[in-house]
Every structure is written in structure tokens, then in C-alpha cells.
């Protein structure tokens, strides 16, 4: 490290040279050195350097860039002498015209300002409004997005850190707001990675930062909302929402009418859901901004003025239910309503009476609306609302019933609104519907509603609904097969499940479940099993899952045949549920065992686990009933996934692997499918927890892709490995699931798959491709780039199976095409077009349709060729083909045509 004085001596010649270029080189060298060593300078040295640099700013223009670099380095010094920041900026603003500098020098200036604002805030504030003026002049006309981000940051600092804007408020607003709304498309392969969103966010922080901008910003937003460009509208609405949360009522007072007109238009004549919801959000913020206001004695209440406007425009639409403005009006009212208590009072008072009036006349359309006004205060209307809901629940019109349930739910969520008697009535209605309703959609809605209500009013449900359901289940079972409806029981179980989910936290109800319901359900299931009834299990399964505590009893029931805890105990003792009996109806009970033991948290010890595991393994390898052996395999896998690491686990896995592989290797074995099922579930259990022994099993799976009998199943197996399973081995069951296990599996195994594909004989290739497409469908798209050339090559394969699975693999990739694919567009297009008259033409046409959404300049050269080729499938003999061709051709016609895209 050289002392800086030494440098002056050394460079004296070039710094004092009469040639500006030579001087510039000297200053450049000095600046570069300073960049390396600004931390080591003393205050005195800094002072000298600043004086030198300030002087150089007046020198030849060619010297300015290195001077700015040097000054930037100095702004990072911690020992900047007092007053130097101010003098530096004064000479900068005075001697340099920033916008005539090059890109990097402009960025240099912005960085200086940012550095100084970080460290010398008090000094800069001393400059007063001059600082703001200097900045406004510097950034006026900036066009580069990188520099704009910096400039916006400075502007934001100025606003948020309380710099004095003086009389330059409007100038600062003008110089930033001229970019609004941001219209920027990053160039292809842009190395800086600046996105439109970053710019939008940065600018929005500036514009919405201070109420001082309100008088300029609000008219601008109203003007931009008139724009035809969707993104401009969206940006305007979001900016409006952002700034309104800062403003007070006096800032917006004079623009209320204009804002309302624009917002109303966006919602009434909306063409896009995003704009509509942005408009509604803006309305909510506007209303809550007005609601926050503190009124003076002489000022008018701007909230009620504004809501009068809203009501005037919306209310009458509500009374004309056959017209299309009903819904938008309801949405607007709801948005305003949800802003504050006062707003909801005003609106409810004005709207509810006429809504209730209408509901009695034309219920179907109107009933949907009160449910949307849920935020409001209803108490005055409780009685009429309740009677309306209950009468709707008794109607036969299913959509009316569904709306009524959702309305009941939202009413119940109003704390303290419904009386106990209302709840009881509601429970009666729900019970009746649960047990008698035949329409699936209604049943589902009722179950949802019962679940929601049970969480809020557990007492009523425990005393009324649950006993009723229990007796119903009993009745159904005891009545034997006559009038037995599996759906009914399943439905009852579903609602039990919903209720269980909601109430499991309270001790009392939990007790009720564990002591009464679960044993009863198990006993019913067992009874059903002994009588040979089926279809009951799937219903019970979900309820049983929730009852972890019962696990130890369940284990002893299954292992030891201990039936003592079941009610109505008339079972033969020593039933052996896990031993291969003659009846699959008993063996399938294992799925209840799975429900009991596989959803336990990892910390809970499962009793007698080794014995349990070995019996499960035995069952899954020998049983012949598909549900039974699959459930046993899943249960086994669920337990293996949670066992703690160690030798006992490893030896268990090795034993199982050996057994499974030997069954699979003997092609004549009668239980190959069973062994395969166990293998795939265990492989999944291990894969999820990154267990090293999973490789043996997945390798086996790869080798089975070439197997004559199991090849297709193996290919499907990859989908099981990669997707989440609903009943075991998911996070909800507390399974050990590591993040990114799919990506990891893919990166470790994609090479094997490609190799296998290349080596496989023609007739086996479809299995590999199918396996591949199963993996690819679950992966983030960038991973598939590696496989593109494989896919493109597979399109040339004459086998239809290969073509079809390749196309189905390609289609999701085409929706978000990686750059590598675009480079191979010629090959892709001609190979796809070659297939549009073959037997895989539908899939091929879909891919061609997807191609039409590629970047326009890339695919435009193919337009004429594709349109010509697509004329032929328009006359295909199959309607499904024609319809795909019509859609694809329509999109390609729009491409590059005015108004098209």
C-alpha cells in the first residue's frame, strides 16, 4: 500500500500534462487506486483529494468520467471531513450535466448520492431543497433501467427519510411519474436480470411514499385507468391501493368522484379477473382510508359522501336480478363493506332490507348475495335471515340449498349473531340433509357446512348430530343388506371426519372420539368384515386416521386379536386379522390398521413394532387380495419411513429387499405383483427420507422396465414415486419427507434412464418414455432441458406408443419452452407436422397448438407452413381431431396478424 502522497509525485507528469487525454489517464489511475484503498485514507488526505477532484470537474470534459469514479470511491470513506459531502455535491450539481454522461458515469453519480445519503444524512438535509433540485436535474431524462432502479431508490430515500422537498415537490413528482406506468420488456438474454416488476415496485414506492404527491398522483392514475393496455390498468390500480393506505381523507377528498367513476368502470366492464380484483382491492383501501379520517366540526363526512355515491350507482342494479350488472354491483358493495365497521354499517343498513325483500320473491338469484356481505353487522336482520336460510334449506332446488349452506356458514362465523336455538335448528336441518340428500353436490356442501359449524359450536353437534349419526350407522348395518347404502355410511363418516378435524383440540370431544366413536367404528368395521360386507372401510379410514391415541389398542387388536375394548362385544376371541384367512373381507381391515399407526407423529413409539412389521411384510407378500396386500405394503412403508436410523432398520430393509428381489427374479412366482407393490412402496418410503438403501430398490425398478409382464407397471410406478400419496407417506401423516427429493432422484437417475432407453429394444422403448414422462411431469421445467434431444429423437421412432408418450411428455414442456428448445424449432415443427395425419394426431395437434404461444418472432417463419398443413386435419373423419385442428389453426392465424396477439 502506497501512501497517496507518493503517488502524486509519481504521476505528477501525467496529471499536469497539457494533453487532456494524458491527464485523464493520470486521474483514471488515481481513481482506480482509490477504489482499492479508500478505507486506509486519513481525513487530511481525503480533504486534499476532494479539493483536487472538485477542481478537476471544471477541467476538460474528457476527464470527468475518471473524476466521478474517484469521487465515488471517496464517498465510501468513513473519515469524510465535515462539510465535504455538501461541497462535493455542490460542485457536482454545478459543473456536471449528468444526462449527457455515459451510462456508467451516470450510475456513478447515483451511487455517490446513495453512499452519501447512507452516511451523511444530516449534512445533506442541511442543503435543503437544493439537494432535491440537484437530484431532479440529474435524473431528468434517464432511460436506462439499471440507472432508473438507482434513481428510484434515491427518490424513495428522499421521501421516506424526510428530506425537505421545498418548492420542488411537483418537480420531483414529474421527474419520476413520467415513467408511470412502467412499460419495459427486458431484452432477450439480458445479463442484468432487471424485470418489469422490480421497476414497477421501485417506482410505486416513490409515488405512493408521501401524501404530498396526492394532488398530482390521483389525477394521473385516473387518466391512466382509461388506458387500453391491461398491464397499465393493473399497475395503476395497484399503485392506487398502495398510495391510499398512506393518505388521509383530505388528500383524496376532491378526487372521490373521479376515482369512483374509474373503479366502477373497471369492475362493471371488466375483461380480466386480475383487473377486477385489483379494482375491488383499491375500493376497499379507499373506503378504509376515508373511514380513518378524524372529522372537524365543520368538515363534511367524506366517508358517507363517498358511500352515497357507491350506493347510488350500485343499489338499483341489485333490484334488477336478470341483468348482468348484479354481480359486479354486489362485489363492489362487498369490497366497500369489508373496509371498516362504519362502512359496513352504512351499506348493510341501506342494502339489506331490499335484499331480504327480494329473496322472498325470487330466491335463487338473490340468496347468493347476502352471503358475500359477510363482514357486515347483521344483528338487526338476524330473524329474517335465519328464516330465509332455513326455508331455502327445505327447498328442493339443489343450487339454492348449496347457497343456503354457504350462507349459513358465514352467518355462523359472525360471533354472537346466531342464538342457541338457531344453531339447534341448523343442526337439525344439516342432519336431515346429511342422511337423506341424494345430490352429491348438496351432500358435499352440507358436509363442509357441518364441519365449519362444528368448529364454532361443538356442543350442539356433540349432543345432537353425533349420536344421531351413530344410531343411523347402526341402523344401516343392523338392517343387513336391505336398504343398505354404502354412500350414506361413507357420507356420515365424512362428516364425522370433518367434525373430528375441527374439534380434536378440545379435550372433552377428543375423549368422546377416542372412547366412543373410534371403538364403535372399528367394531362396526369388524362386524361388516365378518358378515362379508364391503365398501365400508374407505369411509372409516379417514376417521380412524385422526385418532392416533387408539393406535396401541388397534395394534393389539390386529396382532393379538384383543377385542375387549370394542363395544357390543360379541366377536369370537382370537380373530387373526393379519394372518392369511380365507376371507379377503377380513384381511382388508389392514387398511384401518394403516390409518391408526401410520399417522402417528414420529416421536410416538408404536408398540410391538418388529412383530407388526414382519406380519405386515408376510401379508403383503402372500395375500392375494389387491386392497389387502397394497394396504399392508403401504402400512409397512409408512412404518419404515418413520423408524429411526440404525442397524435394525438397515437389516430390516436388506431382508425385505432380498425377499422382494428373489420373488421378482423368478418369473414364474405367483406373487410377483405383490412383491412389486411392496418394493415400490418401500422404495418410496426410503426415497423420501434420503435413505442410501433406496438405490437398490429403485435400480431394481429401472431394470424391471424391460420386464415382459411388469414393464408397464414399473413405468407407472415412477408416477407413484414422484407424486404425493394421499393416505400415507405425506407430511400430514408426519412422514419423513425431505425437500427436493424429486430433483435429487432425477439428477441421480436421468442418465440411467437415457442409457436404458438407448439400449432397449424397440418394443420396450415406450416403457422408458412413459417412466420418463411420469418423472418429468412432476419436475420443475428447467430440469427437462437435458432430455430435449432424447424427446426429439423419440418423435422419429415409428412405434405409436413411443410417439404418444413422447408427445404427452412434450406438451407440458411446450407451455413454458426452455431456450434450448427454441434453437431446435425447425426439427420440432417438421416432426410434429409429420404426425398430424397419423393415429397420434390429436396429441400432435395439441403440441402444435402449444407452439403458437412461443415468442412470436421465433415461430412467425413457420406460420404459412403450419397453416397449410393444418388445412388437412380440418376435414378429418373424427370430430375430436377436427376440433383440435380448428383451435390450433385459429391460434396460428392470429399470430402476427393485427389485433391477434
Amino acid at each position, binding site marked *: 500500500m502506497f501512501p497517496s502522497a507518493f503517488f502524486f509525485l509519481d504521476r505528477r507528469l501525467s496529471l499536469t500534462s497539457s494533453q487532456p487525454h494524458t491527464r485523464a489517464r493520470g486521474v483514471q489511475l488515481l481513481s482506480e487506486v482509490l477504489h482499492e484503498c479508500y478505507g486506509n485514507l486519513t481525513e487530511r488526505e481525503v480533504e486534499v483529494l476532494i479539493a483536487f477532484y472538485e477542481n478537476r470537474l471544471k477541467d476538460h470534459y474528457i476527464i470527468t468520467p475518471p473524476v466521478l469514479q474517484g469521487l465515488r470511491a471517496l464517498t465510501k470513506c468513513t473519515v469524510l471531513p465535515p462539510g465535504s459531502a455538501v461541497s462535493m455535491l455542490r460542485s457536482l450539481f454545478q459543473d456536471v450535466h449528468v444526462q449527457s454522461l455515459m451510462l456508467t458515469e451516470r450510475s456513478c453519480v447515483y451511487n455517490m448520492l446513495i453512499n452519501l445519503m447512507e452516511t451523511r444524512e444530516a449534512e445533506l438535509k442541511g442543503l435543503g431543497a437544493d439537494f432535491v433540485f440537484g437530484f431532479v436535474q440529474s435524473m431528468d431524462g434517464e432511460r436506462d433501467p439499471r440507472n432508473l432502479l438507482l434513481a428510484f431508490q434515491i427518490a424513495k430515500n428522499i421521501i421516506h427519510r424526510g428530506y425537505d422537498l421545498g418548492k420542488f415537490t411537483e418537480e420531483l413528482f414529474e421527474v419520476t411519474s413520467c415513467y408511470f406506468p412502467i412499460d419495459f420488456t427486458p431484452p432477450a438474454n439480458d445479463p442484468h436480470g432487471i424485470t418489469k416488476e422490480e421497476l414497477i415496485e421501485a417506482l410505486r414506492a416513490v409515488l405512493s411514499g408521501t401524501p404530498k404527491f396526492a394532488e398530482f398522483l390521483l389525477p394521473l392514475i385516473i387518466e391512466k385507468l382509461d388506458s*387500453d393496455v391491461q398491464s*397499465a390498468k393493473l399497475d395503476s390500480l395497484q399503485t392506487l391501493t398502495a398510495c391510499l393506505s398512506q393518505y388521509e381523507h383530505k388528500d383524496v377528498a376532491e378526487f372521490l368522484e373521479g376515482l369512483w367513476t374509474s373503479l366502477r368502470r373497471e369492475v362493471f366492464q371488466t375483461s380480466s379477473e386480475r383487473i377486477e380484483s385489483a379494482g375491488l382491492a383499491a375500493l376497499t383501501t379507499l373506503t378504509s382510508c376515508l373511514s380513518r379520517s378524524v372529522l372537524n366540526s365543520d368538515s363534511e363526512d367524506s366517508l358517507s359522501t363517498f358511500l352515497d355515491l357507491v350506493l347510488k350507482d350500485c343499489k338499483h342494479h341489485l333490484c334488477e336480478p336478470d341483468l348482468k350488472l348484479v354481480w359486479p354491483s354486489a362485489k363492489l358493495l362487498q369490497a366497500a363493506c369489508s373496509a371498516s365497521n362504519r362502512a359496513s354499517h352504512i351499506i348493510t343498513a341501506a342494502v339489506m332490507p331490499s335484499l331480504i325483500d327480494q329473496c322472498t320473491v325470487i330466491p335463487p338469484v338473490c340468496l347468493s348475495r347476502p352471503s358475500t356481505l359477510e363482514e357486515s353487522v347483521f344483528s338487526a336482520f338476524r330473524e329474517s335471515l335465519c328464516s330465509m336460510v332455513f326455508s331455502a334449506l327445505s327447498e328442493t332446488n339443489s343450487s339454492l340449498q348449496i347457497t343456503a349452506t354457504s350462507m349459513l356458514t358465514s352467518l355462523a362465523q359472525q360471533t354472537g349473531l346466531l342464538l342457541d336455538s338457531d344453531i339447534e335448528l341448523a343442526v337439525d336441518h344439516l342432519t336431515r340433509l346429511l342422511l337423506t340428500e341424494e345430490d352429491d353436490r348438496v351432500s358435499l356442501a352440507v358436509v363442509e357446512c357441518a364441519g365449519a359449524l362444528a368448529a364454532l359450536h361443538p356442543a350442539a353437534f356433540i349432543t345432537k348430530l353425533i349420536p344421531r349419526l351413530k344410531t343411523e350407522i347402526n341402523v344401516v348395518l343392523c338392517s343387513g343388506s336391505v336398504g343398505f347404502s354404502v354412500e350414506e355410511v361413507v357420507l356420515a363418516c365424512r362428516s364425522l371426519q370433518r367434525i373430528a378435524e375441527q374439534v380434536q383440540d378440545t379435550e372433552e370431544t377428543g375423549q368422546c372420539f377416542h372412547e366412543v366413536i373410534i371403538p364403535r367404528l372399528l367394531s362396526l368395521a369388524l362386524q361388516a368384515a365378518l358378515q362379508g360386507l364391503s365398501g365400508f372401510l374407505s369411509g372409516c379410514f379417514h376417521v380412524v386416521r385422526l385418532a392416533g391415541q387408539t393406535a396401541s389398542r388397534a395394534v393389539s387388536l390386529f396382532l393379538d386379536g384383543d377385542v375387549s375394548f370394542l363395544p357390543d362385544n360379541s366377536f369370537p376371541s382370537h380373530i387373526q386379522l393379519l394372518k392369511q384367512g380365507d376371507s379377503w373381507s377380513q384381511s382388508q381391515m389392514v387398511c384401518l390398521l394403516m390409518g391408526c399407526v401410520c399417522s402417528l407423529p414420529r416421536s410416538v413409539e408404536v408398540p410391538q413394532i418388529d412383530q407388526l412389521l414382519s406380519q405386515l411384510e408376510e401379508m403383503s407378500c402372500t395375500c392375494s387380495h389387491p386392497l389387502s396386500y397394497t394396504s399392508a405394503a403401504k402400512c409397512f412403508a409408512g412404518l419404515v419411513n418413520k423408524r429411526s436410523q440404525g442397524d435394525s432398520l438397515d437389516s430390516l430393509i436388506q431382508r425385505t429387499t432380498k425377499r422382494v428381489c428373489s420373488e421378482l427374479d423368478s418369473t414364474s412366482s405367483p406373487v410377483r405383483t405383490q412383491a412389486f407393490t411392496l418394493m415400490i412402496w418401500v422404495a418410496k418410503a426410503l426415497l423420501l427420507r434420503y435413505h442410501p438403501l433406496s438405490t437398490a430398490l429403485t435400480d431394481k425398478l429401472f431394470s424391471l422396465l424391460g420386464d415382459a409382464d411388469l414393464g408397464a407397471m414399473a413405468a407407472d410406478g415412477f408416477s407413484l414415486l414422484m407424486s404425493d400419496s394421499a393416505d400415507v407417506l405425506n407430511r400430514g401423516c408426519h412422514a419423513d419427507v425431505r425437500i427436493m427429493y424429486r430433483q435429487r432422484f432425477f439428477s441421480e437417475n436421468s442418465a440411467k434412464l437415457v442409457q436404458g432407453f438407448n439400449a432397449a429394444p424397440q418394443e420396450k422403448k415406450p416403457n422408458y418414455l412413459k417412466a420418463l414422462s411420469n418423472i418429468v411431469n412432476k419436475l420443475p421445467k428447467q430440469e427437462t432441458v437435458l432430455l430435449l434431444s432424447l424427446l426429439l429423437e423419440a418423435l422419429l421412432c415409428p412405434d405409436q406408443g413411443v410417439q404418444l408418450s413422447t408427445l404427452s411428455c412434450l406438451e407440458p414442456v411446450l407451455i413454458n419452452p426452455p431456450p434450448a428448445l427454441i434453437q431446435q424449432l425447425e426439427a420440432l415443427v417438421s416432426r410434429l407436422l409429420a404426425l398430424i395425419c397419423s393415429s397420434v394426431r390429436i396429441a400432435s395437434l395439441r403440441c402444435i397448438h402449444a407452439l403458437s404461444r412461443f415468442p412470436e418472432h421465433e415461430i412467425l417463419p413457420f406460420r404459412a407452413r403450419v397453416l397449410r398443413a393444418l388445412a388437412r386435419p380440418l376435414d378429418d373423419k373424427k*370430430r*375430436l381431431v*377436427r376440433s383440435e385442428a380448428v383451435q390450433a389453426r385459429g391460434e396460428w392465424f392470429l399470430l402476427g396478424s393485427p389485433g391477434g396477439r
Partner: protein
Amino acid sequence: LVSSGGLKMSGGTRLENANPVIFQRSGERLLTASEEDEDVHDPIDDREIFDILSINDPEHPLSLEELNVVEQVRVKVNDAESTVGVEFTPTIPHCSMATLIGLSIKVKLLRSLPDRFKIDVHITPGTHASEEAVNKQLADKERVAAALENSSLLEVVNQCLSTRNI
């Protein structure tokens, strides 16, 4: 790279019929077993043409079907003789967009049907003030071709034909 503001104003475009009666959409066509059978030939029928015509109205965010401008009973196709006839009903008798709607229907059919078809698009008799003039324009091949050379006209037609999913 960043343009400084200044967007086009849409300026005073008012809807002619801002609050039309809307009609329920007919459901999706149900798939029959024979349609999935590769060996069976499915003739082009009225419903298929009707489904092709799910076009947006140029002034409403609604489809022509929802506005009852196009109805299935007013679509006639004869696959064997390669003819298609479509009658459309403007929402109001003075609708200035009638020609444009007719043109959009015609263009959509030209793009979606095999060459062999002769396409006839006209206004449902008695539903428009200048019915004859519009029908004459729509039937004149050269005028249709000339209209589509006009890029601002083509722009509106394409907007009607683009699937709205912004």
C-alpha cells in the same frame, strides 16, 4: 429502453347497448362412444359448426352465444353437399356492428372449415334495419377479401376471434 409514460387514451368509446339481455350458454357437447371409435366417420353437423362460432362480441365481454346472436337452430350444415348456412341476429335492429359480426363469423368459418365448403352468412330475416345491404356485402367474395386487407378492420375481427383469457 423504458418509455416515459404517454399511453393512448381510449377516448369516449360508448357502448351502443350497454346492458343487453344475456342467455345461458348451452353446455359442452357430450362425448359419445362412437366419437372415440377410430373406425367410425363423424359427419360435420350443426352443433359442431355452432361450437366453432363461440366468438366474442366486438362490444361486449360476452360471446355471441350468450347474447343470442348465434343460435344452434339457425346453423345449417350439409356435409355431403359441402354447404354451410349461418343466420345471425344483431342484438338491436340498428346495431352498427352487424357487418362486423357477420364478417367475423365468416372469417372464423373460413379458417376452421375445409376448402370444399361453400359458406353463406346472413342476418336472420326481419331483425335488422339494413338487412339487405349487410347480406349483400357479406356474400360478395371480393368485398370480404378487400375488407380483410384493411388492417384496422382485420384487427377488430381478430380481437373477436381471439380466445379471451388475459
